């Protein structure tokens, strides 16, 4: 029994401080991403989420250049990009892809510049891979309070505007007829999404961050027909894929090409979870849930 467990969980997994930090940060990020992500999927803003993550790469890389924690860069750039998208007109159905695309292009251009500048300076070796694809085992303990604070802001925003956000996401017209400030609600949501994406970027990288935002949420939407449960479910699925991903990545130090990226495992597990939720017929799901 003990040997079986050891085969799954490599020795030192729970005693390693970087693993402990990864598990805590991963869980926090998964909760925030799942909660925000349910609305991303409902509102059909996955592309905007993807763009905010990609744009975050420029922030993360510039943070490396000036020598501060990448999370500051991710958050700063994602929030700024969300503001620009809002100004260009992401809330209009026709302006949505346009606003996203324009900001996305500009962000990637900056990322290219900063990553190039970074590659010419010897102190930031590996920054490119870290920024784009994440490296959760190399997090600094000082990141934890930042993750907690930004995560709390995103979560609090969603929980406070939960009902108005749900109503305008279902139908902006119904919201407007009830005199809800549809645009303000959309802007607050965009802010929460920018924070969630920035947090995800720290764990699995800027490029892959939407996988954690959208994947568990899309899975949850298949499993339950109630909005509150969908959020709980998305958070749990997120924690699940994150922790199993961390475990597998830790195990992979003894595999060929030692130390596979956590991001690879996480996004693969996200995909498997989503496909399973669509493919596996669940009689229980038909009736209740």
């Amino acid at each position, binding site marked *: 029994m003990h040997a079986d467990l050891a085969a799954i969980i490599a020795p030192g997994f729970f005693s390693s401080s970087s693993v402990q930090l990864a598990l805590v940060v991963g869980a926090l990020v998964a909760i925030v991403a799942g909660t925000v992500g349910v609305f991303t999927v409902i509102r059909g803003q996955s592309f905007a989420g993807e763009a905010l993550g990609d744009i975050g790469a420029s922030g993360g890389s510039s943070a490396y250049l000036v020598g501060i924690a990448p999370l500051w860069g991710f958050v700063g750039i994602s929030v700024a990009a969300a503001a620009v998208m809002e100004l260009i007109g992401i809330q209009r159905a026709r302006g949505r892809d346009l606003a996203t695309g324009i900001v996305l292009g500009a962000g990637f251009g900056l990322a290219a510049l900063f990553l190039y500048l970074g590659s010419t300076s010897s102190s930031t070796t590996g920054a490119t891979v870290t920024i784009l694809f994440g490296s959760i085992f190399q997090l600094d303990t000082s990141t934890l309070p930042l993750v907690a604070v930004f995560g709390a802001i995103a979560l609090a925003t969603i929980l406070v505007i939960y009902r108005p956000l749900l109503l305008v996401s279902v139908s902006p017209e119904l919201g407007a007829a009830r005199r809800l400030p549809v645009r303000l609600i959309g802007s607050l949501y965009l802010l929460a999404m920018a924070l969630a994406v920035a947090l995800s970027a720290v764990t699995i990288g800027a490029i892959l961050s939407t996988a954690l935002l959208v994947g568990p949420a899309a899975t949850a939407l298949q499993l339950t027909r109630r909005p509150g*449960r969908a959020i709980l479910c998305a958070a749990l699925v997120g924690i699940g894929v994150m922790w199993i991903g961390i475990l597998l990545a830790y195990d992979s130090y003894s595999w060929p090409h030692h130390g596979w990226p956590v991001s690879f495992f996480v996004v693969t597990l996200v995909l498997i979870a989503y496909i399973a939720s669509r493919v596996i017929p669940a009689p229980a799901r038909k009736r209740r849930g």
Partner: protein
Amino acid sequence: MTSPGATVTADPVAAHDAGEALRVEGITLHLGGRTVLDDVSFQVGAGEFTGLIGPNGAGKTTLFRVILGLQQPTSGSVRVGGGGRSGRDVGYVPQKFLLDPDMPLRGRDLIALGLDGHRLGIPLPSRTRRARVQEMVEAVDAQAFADERVGRLSGGEQQRILIAHALISRPQLLLLDEPLANLDLRSAQEVVGLLARIAAEQRIAVLISAHEMNPLLPVMDRVVYLAAGHAASGTAEEVVRSDVLSRLYGHHVDVLRVHGRVLVVAGTGHDEHAPLDDPGDASAPVEIV
């Protein structure tokens, strides 16, 4: 539990005593150099079932937006009930309602959002709230499908849920924008019967827009006929007459009564004077309204 709408304006009972749920006075609206509404005036009495009839493009949705306070008229005034106006005095069922089938929202969740969708924070479990929702589910005969995802319901079922959503805050006035447009004949009859019953039982004034008046003829107390931005109101016998409608359209139209059905047909010989804004309408040889 008091209705959230009732606290905002004059006592609804007093308004009902006054016998007036809606007074529209001299509404004129210019939009982009076009006169969309031209001196539109009419009243809807408490508990009255009124049809807002007119061809597509006549300005019915725009008039609803003015009544809801979402569109500022160029001149004129709108008064709901006895006193001031707030979104929750008016229940609204919008014309287009397209939901993703995967939206994690049951019929009863959408109805509940009609009660407290404007409130901040997450909804706490409440027996009163559940009972109010169940009461509305039963009022619109939605017991069989209230626990299904709204996005997977049929058009008629969605209409019932939306009607319950609009009515749960106990408005004095219910606006429905083309609710019969995408329904088969039987569902349309059921929805009309349901609305007529609710209007009578709960003394709620119903203003329902439609381009086809025949399904409404058996239940309509009054007709507001809107054509080319002009309106005439009264009983169906008073309004749906060749002379009245010809004046609204600005060209000759015939009103034919066949087997209890009313057909409004563009007259011959005056077509060159047709001042309709929509060329599609003007060129139609026969227009059944």
